[in-house]
């Protein structure tokens, strides 16, 4: 069974009296362990699609199943729970909590979302810190962009999600750092079996992605692939 199954999903935004379509009937499937990218120009619907996959928004029509669950009708609390249990996020601006150290940023989903025991958390967080090559005491304001994104990747993976959604994860990184982060994500995928889905127009990601979906004007130009 595919990790993600999207069938004819549409998304309209209400602007004044007008319904503006952002996605116009998209169908695709993505399997376990994918390293896939949604690419396309600005306004093509990449971010909208990523929001739907991340259960941050609902499709206007169509069905969307993630990890075997129809996520198109989840309530606010159900969606939060689903995200906390099955999804990880990596953001363009890293979005670390500035008052927390690297360790605490990584620990946050386990403590505040999953409620793991201290011993279990410690073991898991240290494993992730080792995996991304960070030290635990650093604060975000003491880290470089690459280090912040490493911590963000570790935070996304610490809860062992099946899927990590990354919105332009290399946009604010220099060339070498961007490659190191992409390689890190690939290693993580290989080590933990987690699927990575990117929204990007960064050629580096497009080259590294094993499956690429091209979006244009809310329509999928390359449809229905299973990685």
């Amino acid at each position, binding site marked *: 069974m595919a990790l993600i199954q999207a069938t004819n999903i549409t998304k309209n935004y209400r602007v004044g009296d007008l319904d503006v379509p952002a996605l116009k009937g998209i169908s695709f499937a993505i399997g376990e362990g994918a390293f896939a990218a949604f690419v396309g120009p600005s306004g093509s619907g990449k971010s909208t699609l990523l*929001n739907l996959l*991340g259960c*941050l928004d609902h499709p206007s029509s169509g069905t969307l199943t993630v990890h075997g669950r129809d996520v198109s009708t989840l309530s606010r*609390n159900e969606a939060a*729970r689903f995200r906390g249990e099955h999804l990880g996020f990596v953001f363009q601006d890293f979005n670390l*909590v500035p008052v927390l150290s690297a360790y605490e940023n990584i620990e946050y*989903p386990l*403590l*505040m979302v999953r409620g793991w025991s201290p011993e279990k958390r410690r073991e898991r967080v240290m494993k992730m810190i080792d995996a991304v090559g960070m030290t635990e005491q650093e604060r975000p304001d003491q880290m470089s962009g690459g280090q912040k994104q490493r911590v963000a990747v570790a935070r996304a993976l610490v809860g062992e999600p099946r899927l990590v959604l990354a919105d332009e994860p290399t946009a604010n990184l220099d060339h070498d750092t961007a490659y190191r982060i992409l390689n890190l994500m690939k290693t993580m995928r290989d080590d933990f079996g987690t699927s990575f889905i990117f929204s990007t127009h960064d050629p580096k990601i497009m080259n590294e992605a094993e499956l690429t979906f091209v979006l244009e004007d809310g329509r999928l130009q390359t449809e229905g692939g299973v990685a």
Partner: protein
Amino acid sequence: MMSTFNLAARNLMRYRRRTMLTALLITLGVAALLLFVAAAGSFKQTMVGSITDSMLGHFQVHRKGYTASIDNLPLNMSLQPKAVAKIETALKAEPEVAAYSKRVKLGAMFSNFAENTSIRLNGIDPAAEDATVPALRERITEGNKDGPLVERGKVLIPELIAKGMKVKVGDTVVLVVTNSSGSVNGKNFTVGGVLQAVTGPGGRDGYIDIADARDLLRMENEEVMEIAVRLKSIDDLSAVQKRVSVPLDEIRNKEDKPATELHLWSQLSPFANIVAMIDMMTLFIRIMMVAIVLVSVMNVMLMAVYERIREIGTLAAIGTQPGKLMAIFLSEGLLLGLFGAVAGIAISYAVVGGMNVWPMVFNFGREQIVLHPTLAVSEVLGVLGLSIIVSGLASLQPAWRAARMDPIQALRHV
């Protein structure tokens, strides 16, 4: 390593100066309220103590209607011996009653053989009066302070009359009264002592032995006009009032209506109005403190939510439940209120301690008052609780706003 309160504390310290300024505002509000309550409480306690311990007692029992015309000291509205006996039985049965004193009150003409003036006389049993109003003795400025309050043939006169009539201890004076049947009677007395003035009614009150008072009035029965009662603790006043009122109501007149009435000190002294005013001022200061805490905490929390919209979006995206988000911001508000209030309480204790080491003295009317403020634990806990509750309420709306924020919009926020 990290909990909701820990995270909240760190978020507060993110904007250290703003947090400190807001906490300082709360601190000042709490300290102002507690210091006012402590100083006003001390003033109230001193004044109430002075009034009840040196003059009124904690409550008084009269014949029905007596207090309505108490200014005229009516002689025909006395409690008859039968009623007095029943009242005494009721008072003796009440375990919280420490002492009581029967008084014969009368208006008299005071003469030093050269001039006349009016005087309000209290005929008392010295021992019972001493037990009921123990501070009366402390008001004796001239004369024997250690013996009985008054002896037969002697009169304690107020300072006002002593000065005005130029009489001193040992002088002979004449007291002339008109009794209930209209006969005039006069008797020589020796001035046994001079009483310091006291705030409120009683400034022209003199004291003679109850037997002398009855002699002057040619009273055949052992009637009394007033029974002043002292309790073991003034805090039990309303409970004792309720209990004692039951047997007193059973004392009936010919029309089968209650023949007696019970009045608390607060119903007999105009100082009760000042007490009510102080209580009102305390209430207003309390409201001001609530407003300070409410506005300052709400302002800080609204700014905190506005400044951290992207962070809220991130936390929501990675699966933080709306309730948990709300708890994070609520905790920040509560901690801010708690920190400000605790600092305010610490300052209040320090200032109150200082005021007890170096007491404040001021004059109120003709009395000199020394303030010995204290902070009741219940008051401190009440103010602490109020600050925390108000801080929580002030954080509620910002926290709710954070919890209900759309993660997509929040993540897009610049």
